[in-house]
C-alpha cells in the first residue's frame, strides 16, 4: 500500500515537473537557438525538480538498496551495468539479441532487413549519421557513430527500463548517456537538468513499468504522441475512458502485462504483426509459440458471450476496429510532416517556429510543416500481418504517392482482418538521379558544418547523410509524397464506447466506417442498386395497377347505379 503511494507521488512529481518543462518549450520562437531543437526535452520522460523518494516493489524478494554492489557512487551508466551483471550474468547477452539493442529486425515473411538501423520513415527519416541524437532511445550507452561496439556488455543500459526513481533521463545529443553533471538544457534556455543520481537509480530497480517503456515509446517521432497515435504520455496514468486495461483505478496493467516479456525479448511487433490470431482457446501466458500481446491471447476469438453475431464479425474484423473507435484520444498526434518547406529563416537569419490555432507547432525551420489532430477516425484496411517497406535501395516513382510500408492483405486471402490504422502523410527528400529515398544528416554536435539543423543546407545535409551509409548523393534532390501506416492497437476503449452497429451499417453522418473497404458485403450499405430500382419500380407499378383497377370498378359501379336509377 505504502509503496503504491510512493509510486504515485513519484509519478505526480514527475508529471508536475514535466508540465513546467513543457511550458518552457512553448517560449516565444525568438528564443529558439540554432541548436538544439526546442523539441528536445519532449523526447525523454519528465525530470522532477525535487528528488522523489525511491519507490520499492513491495513484493520483491530482493531489496536492491541492501546490495553492497549497489552502494557505490557510480560515475557512469556502464559502471552500473557492470554491477548489475555481477548477479544477472545473462542479462546483457539477452538484451543484445533484441531489437531494443540491435535496432535491426529481419522480417521472416519478406526477407527485408528492417529496424531503425535500416528503414527510412517519413518522420525524422533515418538514424544514420544522427545516432548521437537518436540513441537517447537506444538501450545502450555511447552509440554515436558506426564504430559502436554492439558486443560490449557494459554498454547495455539496464536502468532506462528498470529504474524507478523517475529521475533518469537520456537527453538527445548525449549518445544514450544520462547527464552526469548539471547541464543547461536546452542550451541557452536557462533550464538546468540535474546530474543523475546513479546510486539511487540503481537501488530502485524493479520490473519495467509504464513510464519505463514510455520514456521512449510515448515520444516516438520526436515528441509526445507524435508517432503512433495510440501511445503517448496520457498512458502514464490513464483513466478507464482512455484505456480499459491500463485504467489506474481498474486493472492498472503495465505494458508488460500484454507484452509478456521472456528473457528480455518483448513480444508484439509492428514489423511482423499477428493480424489474425486464430485464438480458439485463450493461450494467455507461458506458451512461447504464440504472441501473448494479441487480444485473443486472453479473450479468444469468441469473447462476446451474449452476441454471437459479434463473434462472427470478429472472424473478419480485428477487435481493435470496433473497440478503438478513435485514436489520439489522449493527446493530439502528428498526421502530416512536410520536410520540403524546412529551412526558412527569419529576418535575422535564425530558425523559427509557428503555431496552429490549436496550440500545436505548425512550422519549424528545422523540420518543415506539420499537422496535428486529436480524436481521429482511423482508416480501415485488410491486413494479413505482412508489411512491405520502401527501403533505401527501393526504386520509387516520384510522380506517385510512395508507401513507406505497404500493408498486405485482402478480403479473400483467408489470413486478413480489417484493421484500423493511422495513415501518416509526409513529403521527404529523394534522389532525382537514382529515384531512391535520401537520408539527411540532421543533428550535428560541436563544430559540425553539414547538419541540416545547423546550416539549413539540403545539399550538405543529404551528402553527409548518404555518406554515412556509404552511398553517393547525386546532388539532385526533390521531395516525394509518402505515407506510412501505423496499426492502431492501444488505448482500447470501454465496451460502451465501442462502435455501434449503425456506425458501419447505418451511419447517421452519411459515411460508414467501412464504406471504403473492398470485398465486403455490408447489409445496409451494399444494396444492389439495379435490383433496388427494379424492385421498387415493379412494386410501384403493381400499386398503381391495383389503384387504377379499383378506381375503374368504382367508376363502373357508379355508372351502373345511375343506369339503374334511370
Amino acid at each position, binding site marked *: 500500500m505504502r509503496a503504491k503511494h510512493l509510486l504515485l507521488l513519484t509519478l505526480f512529481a514527475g508529471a508536475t515537473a514535466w508540465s513546467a518543462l513543457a511550458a518552457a518549450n512553448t517560449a516565444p520562437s525568438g528564443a529558439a537557438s540554432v541548436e538544439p531543437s526546442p523539441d528536445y526535452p519532449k523526447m525523454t520522460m519528465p525530470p522532477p525538480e525535487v528528488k522523489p523518494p525511491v519507490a520499492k516493489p513491495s513484493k520483491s524478494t530482493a531489496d536492491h538498496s541492501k546490495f553492497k554492489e549497489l552502494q557505490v557512487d557510480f560515475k557512469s551508466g556502464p559502471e552500473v551495468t557492470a554491477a548489475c551483471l555481477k548477479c544477472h550474468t545473462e542479462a546483457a547477452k539477452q538484451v543484445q539479441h533484441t531489437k531494443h539493442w540491435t535496432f535491426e529486425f529481419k522480417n521472416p515473411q519478406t526477407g527485408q532487413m528492417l529496424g531503425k538501423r535500416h528503414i527510412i520513415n517519413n518522420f525524422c527519416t533515418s538514424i544514420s549519421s544522427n545516432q548521437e541524437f537518436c540513441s537517447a532511445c537506444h538501450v545502450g550507452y555511447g552509440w554515436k557513430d558506426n564504430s559502436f561496439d554492439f558486443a560490449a556488455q557494459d554498454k547495455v543500459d539496464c536502468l532506462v527500463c528498470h529504474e524507478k526513481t523517475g529521475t533518469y533521463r537520456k537527453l538527445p545529443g548525449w549518445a544514450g548517456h544520462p547527464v552526469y553533471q548539471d547541464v543547461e538544457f536546452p542550451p541557452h534556455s536557462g533550464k538546468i537538468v540535474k546530474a543523475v543520481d546513479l546510486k539511487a537509480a540503481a537501488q530502485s530497480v524493479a520490473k519495467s513499468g509504464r513510464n519505463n517503456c514510455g520514456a521512449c515509446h510515448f515520444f516516438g517521432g520526436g515528441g509526445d504522441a507524435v508517432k503512433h497515435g495510440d501511445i503517448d504520455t496520457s498512458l502514464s496514468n490513464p483513466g478507464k475512458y482512455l484505456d480499459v486495461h491500463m485504467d489506474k483505478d481498474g486493472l492498472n496493467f503495465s505494458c508488460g502485462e500484454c507484452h509478456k516479456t521472456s528473457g528480455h525479448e518483448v513480444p508484439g511487433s509492428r514489423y511482423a504483426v499477428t493480424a489474425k490470431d486464430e485464438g480458439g482457446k485463450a493461450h494467455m501466458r507461458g506458451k512461447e509459440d504464440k504472441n501473448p500481446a494479441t487480444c485473443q491471447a486472453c479473450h479468444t476469438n469468441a469473447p462476446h458471450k451474449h452476441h454471437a453475431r459479434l463473434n462472427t464479425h470478429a472472424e473478419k474484423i480485428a477487435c481493435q476496429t470496433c473497440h478503438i473507435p478513435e485514436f489520439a484520444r489522449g493527446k493530439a498526434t502528428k498526421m502530416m510532416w512536410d520536410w520540403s518547406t524546412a529551412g526558412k529563416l527569419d529576418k535575422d537569419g535564425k530558425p523559427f517556429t509557428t503555431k496552429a490555432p490549436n496550440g500545436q507547432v505548425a512550422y519549424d525551420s528545422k523540420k518543415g510543416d506539420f499537422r496535428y489532430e486529436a480524436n481521429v477516425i482511423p482508416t480501415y484496411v485488410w491486413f494479413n500481418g505482412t508489411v512491405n517497406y520502401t527501403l533505401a535501395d527501393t526504386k520509387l516513382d516520384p510522380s506517385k504517392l510512395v508507401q513507406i510500408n505497404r500493408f498486405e492483405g485482402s478480403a479473400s486471402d483467408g489470413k486478413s482482418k480489417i484493421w484500423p490504422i493511422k495513415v501518416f502523410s509526409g513529403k521527404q527528400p529523394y534522389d532525382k538521379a537514382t529515384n531512391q529515398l535520401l537520408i539527411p544528416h540532421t543533428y550535428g554536435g560541436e563544430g559540425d558544418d553539414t547538419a541540416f539543423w545547423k546550416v539549413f543546407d539540403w545539399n550538405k545535409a543529404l551528402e553527409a547523410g548518404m555518406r554515412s551509409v556509404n552511398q553517393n548523393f547525386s546532388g539532385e534532390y526533390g521531395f516525394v509524397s509518402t505515407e506510412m501506416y501505423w496499426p492502431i492497437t492501444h488505448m482500447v476503449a470501454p465496451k460502451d464506447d465501442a462502435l455501434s452497429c449503425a456506425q458501419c451499417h447505418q451511419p447517421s453522418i452519411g459515411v460508414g466506417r467501412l464504406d471504403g473497404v473492398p470485398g465486403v458485403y455490408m447489409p445496409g450499405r451494399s444494396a444492389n442498386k439495379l435490383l433496388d430500382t427494379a424492385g421498387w419500380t415493379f412494386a410501384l407499378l403493381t400499386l398503381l395497377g391495383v389503384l387504377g383497377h379499383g378506381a375503374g*370498378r368504382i367508376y363502373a359501379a357508379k355508372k351502373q347505379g345511375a343506369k339503374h336509377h334511370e
Partner: protein
Amino acid sequence: MSNRIYVFKVFERFWHWSQALLIIALLVTGFEVHGSYKLLGFATAVDTHTTLAWTLVGLWVFAIFWHFTTGEWKQYIPTLQKVDAMVKFYAYGIFTNAPHPFKATTLKKHNPLQRLAYLGVMLFIGPLIWFTGWFYIFHDKWVEWGWDQYLSLEWVAFFHTVAAFMMLIFLIAHVYLTTAGHTPTSHIKAMITGWEETD
C-alpha cells in the same frame, strides 16, 4: 338470396392473420436492414427481423403439419380450369357487374388464380426467402461448415432481396384482390369469421 358457406377453419384464420402481421413486420424491418430507410435503428431492426423470421418458421411448421394431417394441402393443387374465366372476370366482368365465375365450396375454397398465386408463394417465394434467410442467419457458421466455398453473402443477400420484393408485390396485389370477391368485403369477412357469402 345470400348463401353462407364455412370456408376457413380457426387454425387457417389464425395462420393467415399471424402470418400477415409477421410478413408485414418482416418487410418493414428487412428493408431497414437492407438500407432503404431508418426506422428502428439497425441493431434493433436486425434483432427484430431475426426473431420474427424464426417465429414465422415456427408458424409454417405448424401450418405444414396441419395441411398434411387434414388433407387441406389439396386446396393448392394447381388447375388451369377456369383460369381464363378468372382473368376475363378481373379484366372485364368486374366492371360490368358480371357474376363471379367461381363459387367457393368447402372442398374448393380458392379460385384457380388464387391456387396458382398461393402455390407460387409457397413453392417459389417461400423457399427462396427461407433458404437465403437461413444462409444469412447462419453466415456465422459458413467457415466452420465449409459453406464459404459455395456461398457469397452478396448473392445470398441479392436473392433474399429479390424474394422480399416479390413478397411485397404479392402483398399489394393480394390486399387489393381481397376486395374483388362477390362483394368488396366478402373475402375479408370470410377470413375473419370463416364464413364466405356467396350468391
